């Protein structure tokens, strides 16, 4: 299995100059997913995780910029990598989310997000959208290998 087959292709973005207040609103509107920080050209600069924003609880969120709280983008991750390579990187860095970039574009444009929860889906051997059927399965049912 390759990263591009598993990654979430809907990337939630904000801009460097957006406030943390904007970021929490974006998160709330998008099922509390992490937010990728991009510049005006669409190039990736970093990622704001959920834990990164809650530490500013009680502060003036309008005054803090996304650039100040983001985890800077450090790795170029190719969508053609095998999942095992991505998991090894997540375990080594303790990152919950990896930003996948378009290897063919000049600027580093984000084209997907791979999260630890997506890998849990993969490990469960349940296909996305099929969990309703799984819930109806009798006890002892063993899901097929992916």
């Amino acid at each position, binding site marked *: 299995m390759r990263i591009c087959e598993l990654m979430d292709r809907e990337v939630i973005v904000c801009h460097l100059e957006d406030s943390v207040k904007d970021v*929490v*609103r974006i998160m709330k509107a998008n099922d*509390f997913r992490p937010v990728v920080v991009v510049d005006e050209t669409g190039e990736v600069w970093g990622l704001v995780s959920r*834990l990164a924003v809650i530490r500013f609880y009680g502060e003036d*969120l309008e005054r803090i910029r996304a650039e100040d709280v983001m985890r800077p983008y450090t790795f170029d991750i190719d969508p053609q990598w095998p999942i095992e390579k991505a998991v090894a990187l997540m375990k080594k860095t303790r990152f919950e989310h990896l930003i996948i970039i378009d290897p063919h574009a000049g600027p580093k444009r984000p084209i997907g997000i791979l999260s630890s929860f997506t*890998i849990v889906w993969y*490990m469960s051997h349940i296909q996305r959208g099929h969990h309703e059927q799984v819930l109806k399965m009798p006890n002892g049912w063993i899901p097929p290998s992916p």
Partner: protein
Amino acid sequence: MPSEKWHNDTDFREGPERKLESGLPRPEEKLPEAMEEYVRRLMRTGAITCGTSASIREVAQILAVNSSHYCVVTNQSHEVLGIISARSILRAFDRDLDKTTAQDILLPHTFTITPNSTLREAIRLMDGRKIEHLIVTSGRGGSKAVVGLLHIEDIIAKMALEE
């Protein structure tokens, strides 16, 4: 009904400002500071659980079908032993998913909060431990009875709504 008894015994939803019949504040509770928020206001009751003998594959399926990022591990007496997150399962990626059990990978239940803990205390704990869900225990007489869970989503939703 045990649930009714539990609710009557732990009337945390009423808040620390509740008073005895005499009209005096309860002596063991401090009155809240202005604008301080408490865990009881945001926590959710009930939790997704699994047993210690559940395989990692089964735990992954429980998380997947419930769209949940955590699972509370309990023993046969329904006492909480720990919590398993998506990250915990990721660490077991290379292991035999059908032979490794929840007991092997759980994050032990060593740090908890009570309904009367402040949200700031809970956030400090989440941030320090890098965990997104906290088990809330009753905290009465050292009790480890679980009364709910505090989710990071609910904290972010509150931050988004505050002016």
